[in-house]
């Protein structure tokens, strides 16, 4: 198996990044909404609470993958809304590929698709 097929050692750490970047690729969202979308779209299998979400968001913001701005909702409540930057989109593509490779490799190993 060549190096191209080797799964990066960081792939597990990238799961949170993938989840957040993937939902932000659909639309700009604030923190609560990001967590809600991830929970809904994964059927509750993947979930983020305050303690797990914000460190990820702040790290991604520092790296320039997302940008945040305060916005006022229709209810009058102010919330910090995140949107994906061009760097974030560039990061999302290889991340998706790595995860696809990872699950294909696991599937070959354990026959997950048939399970």
């Amino acid at each position, binding site marked *: 198996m060549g190096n191209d097929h080797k799964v990066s050692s960081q792939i597990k750490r990238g799961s949170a990044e993938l989840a957040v970047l993937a939902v932000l690729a659909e639309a700009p969202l604030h*923190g609560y909404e990001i967590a809600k979308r991830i929970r809904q779209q994964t059927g509750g299998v993947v979930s983020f609470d*305050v303690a797990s979400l914000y460190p990820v968001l*702040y790290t991604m913001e520092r790296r320039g993958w997302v940008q945040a701005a305060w916005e006022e909702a229709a209810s*009058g409540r102010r919330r*910090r809304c995140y949107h994906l930057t061009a760097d974030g989109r560039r990061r999302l593509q290889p991340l998706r590929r790595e995860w696809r490779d990872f699950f294909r490799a696991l599937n070959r190993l354990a026959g997950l698709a048939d399970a």
Partner: protein
Amino acid sequence: MPDWEQLVAERLGHLKLAPEERREVVAEIAAHLEECYQALRAAGSPDPEGYTLAQVADWKALRHRIQKSKEDPMSFSRKVMMPGLAALFVAQFALSVSLHSLVALHGAPTLWQFRGTAGPLPGVFYLPWLAILPFAGALGAWLARRAGASSAQRFTAALFPSLFFVVVSSLFGVIALLVNPQRLISEFKLANQAVILLFWVIIPAIACAIGAWPFLAGAPRQTEPAPPTDAARA
């Protein structure tokens, strides 16, 4: 309904961030918890506050993770190393000019006659260099403050010219110990080491600290734009 901002501010404790950035984090997390609380209440939860707060099992750990995530990995280099190296450069430049003046006036052999306070060295070489050190220390502390460093980091940057001699003398000591340990031990004189320490580390450190003093107080320069203060409140 609980005051979520106050609750989050109390539980997060002292986040080591710029004040505006800290307010922004508190407001954002409070807004998130408030939405959770409202959603749970609307869904008829028996204890919406309890369930909302259960999201954060360890606030101290969350504080640590937030600080780490906000921290620039180049922060130490930008806040301490670069200002410290600038101070060191000024000090070393002054030292080389002093040395050059000494050699020009008294000849190269004079360099080997230094015994702390004897000979022409103090007037021509040591004292002018010492007079420059407060300015070098001030430069280090000022640059560190501009980079957003804390008071301790500014002080460290200011002390680079004297720390340099600690590092250099330690290196020479280690090399001498490896090359010829017996000679090092037999020639070791505590009084000489104390004089070297006093004149090349302690007094220079005091001179640098005097120059740095006006720049140690005060908040670091803000690098982030100020967020709204009422962010989480409707």
